[in-house]
C-alpha cells in the first residue's frame, strides 16, 4: 500500500526536479541536453513543448514551470516586464534559423530556386507555424514577404499549431514544402528524409533563442544550475549539432547545406 502511494505521488525522491517550458524548435535538442545533464548531475528535468506564445500565455496564467526557453527574445522580455521572470537570468543561447524543407522525393532544386521553389505548381500546400503564437511562423511570413511571394502563396499556406507540427505536416508528406526550424531539419527523425535550403538571415527578424528563470519557480537554484549547464562545452556542442549557435553567420545566406 505504501509502495503504491509512493508510486502514485511519484516525484518525492527527486527534490531537485525542475520543469522546463520550451519552444517547439527545441523538441529534438533539449531531450538530449537533459539526458547529458541528468547523467552529469543526477538531477531530473521535465520538458513541456509548445509555441513560445502559447507557453508565455500559460506562464501568465500560472503554469508551474521553473524555466522558459523561448524561440524569440520578445516573449521573455514581456514576462520580465510583467514581473514573471527574473531579468538577470535571461540568457540568449543561440540564433534560430528558418529553413525551407522538402521531402527527398521532391523534384524541386532548392539550391537553384531558393524561396521561389514555392511558386512551382507541384507545391500545392506549404506548412508554416502559426504566426500569431509561434516566432518561426512570424519569421516564415516575414521571409515570404521579403521575397515578394506572400500574396501568391498565401492561399496555399497550412498553419501548424507550433513549428513542430509544421515540420510534421511536411515530414509526413501531407504538404509538399515547409518553412520550419533548422533544428528539426537536422534532427535524426528528419535528417535522412529530405533536403533543405537555409533562408538568409536578412529575410526575417532575428530569432534570438533566449532562456529565463521564472519568478514563481520554487526551484530557483536548480533552474539556474540547468541554465548554467547551457554554457558548458558539452551543451554548446550539442546545441551546435542542432544548428543552434550564437555565431549567426555560421550558415551563410542561401547556402544549401545538404
Amino acid at each position, binding site marked *: 500500500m505504501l509502495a503504491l502511494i509512493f508510486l502514485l505521488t511519484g516525484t518525492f525522491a527527486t527534490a531537485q526536479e525542475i520543469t522546463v517550458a520550451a519552444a517547439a524548435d527545441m523538441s529534438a535538442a533539449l531531450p538530449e541536453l537533459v539526458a547529458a545533464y541528468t547523467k552529469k548531475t543526477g538531477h531530473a528535468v521535465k520538458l513541456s513543448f509548445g*509555441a513560445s*506564445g*502559447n507557453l508565455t*500565455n500559460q506562464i*501568465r496564467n500560472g503554469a508551474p514551470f521553473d524555466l522558459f526557453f523561448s524561440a524569440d527574445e520578445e516573449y521573455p522580455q514581456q514576462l520580465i516586464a510583467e514581473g514573471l521572470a527574473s531579468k538577470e537570468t535571461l540568457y540568449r543561447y543561440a540564433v534560430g534559423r528558418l529553413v525551407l524543407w522538402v521531402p527527398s522525393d521532391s523534384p524541386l532544386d532548392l539550391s537553384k530556386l531558393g524561396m521561389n521553389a514555392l511558386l512551382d505548381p507541384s507545391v*500545392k*500546400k506549404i*506548412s508554416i507555424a*502559426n504566426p*500569431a*503564437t509561434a516566432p518561426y511562423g512570424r519569421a516564415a511570413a516575414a521571409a515570404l514577404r521579403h521575397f515578394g511571394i506572400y500574396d501568391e502563396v498565401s492561399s496555399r*499556406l*497550412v*498553419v*501548424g*499549431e507550433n513549428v513542430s507540427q509544421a515540420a510534421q*505536416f511536411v515530414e*509526413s*508528406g*501531407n*504538404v509538399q514544402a515547409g518553412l520550419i526550424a533548422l533544428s528539426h531539419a537536422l534532427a535524426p527523425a528528419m535528417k535522412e528524409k529530405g533536403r533543405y535550403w537555409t533562408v538568409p538571415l536578412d529575410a526575417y527578424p532575428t530569432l534570438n533563442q533566449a532562456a529565463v528563470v521564472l519568478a514563481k519557480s520554487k526551484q530557483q537554484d536548480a533552474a539556474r544550475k540547468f541554465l548554467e549547464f547551457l554554457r558548458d562545452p558539452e551543451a554548446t556542442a550539442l546545441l551546435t549539432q542542432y544548428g543552434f549557435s550564437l555565431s549567426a553567420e555560421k550558415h551563410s545566406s542561401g547556402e544549401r547545406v545538404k
Partner: protein
Amino acid sequence: MNWEAFWLTVRLAGIVSTLLIAIGIPIAYWLTYSRWRWKFLIEAAVALPIVLPPTVLGFYVLVALGSRSPLGRWWESITGHTLAFTFEGLAIGSLVYSLPFAVQPFAASFGAVDAALLRASASLGHSPVQTFRRIVLPLSKAGLVTGFALSFAHTLGEFGVVLMVGGNIPGVTRTISIDIYDQVQTANYSSANQTALLLLLISFLVLSMVYGVNRHPWVVVPWR
C-alpha cells in the same frame, strides 16, 4: 467574434449530420434486426468513437489516409489533393467521429417499436422495407431528431481532429473551436468569451431540443 469560422462550423455540422441520417439509418436498421451472432462486434465498432481519443482519428486521417499510403494516393488521384487540410477531410473525420451519436439513438428508437405492429403489417402483405418506411420510421421520429441533433452538436464542438489535420486555414478548416483556442492562446479573452458563450448557448439549445422531443407527454399533460 469570427463569423467566418462560425458559419464554416455550422456548414460542417449541417453536412455531417445530414449525411449521418443517410448512413446511420441503414446501419441502425441492420443493428436492430440482424440476428448475426457476431453483431456485438459491429456494435462495438460503431460505438468506438465515443471512447477513442480524437487524436487517434486525426493520426489515421493524417498518416493512413496521407499521401504516403495507398488509400491516400487513390484519393489524391481522384480529387487531386490529400484529405488533410481540406474541408472534405474534416467532413470525413467528423462522420466517423459523430457516427455513434446518430446510430445509437436511431437503433434505440427502432428497437422500441412494438413487434406486434411489425407482425400486423407483415400479415397485411407489406414487405419489410414498406413496414420500415410506414411503421417504424414514423414511430421513430424522436430518435431521428435526437440522432441528428446530437451528431450536429458533437461535430460543432469537434477539436482534436481539426487541430491535427485542419491546418487552421481561414474559411476552409478554421472551425469555431480552433478559433477559440487561438484567441485564448493570444490572450484575446474578450473575443474568446463571446465565441465560447455563443457555443454554450447553441449546445444548450440543441440539447434542450433533444430532451424536449423525448419527454413523456403525460409529464406535461398529466390527465392524458
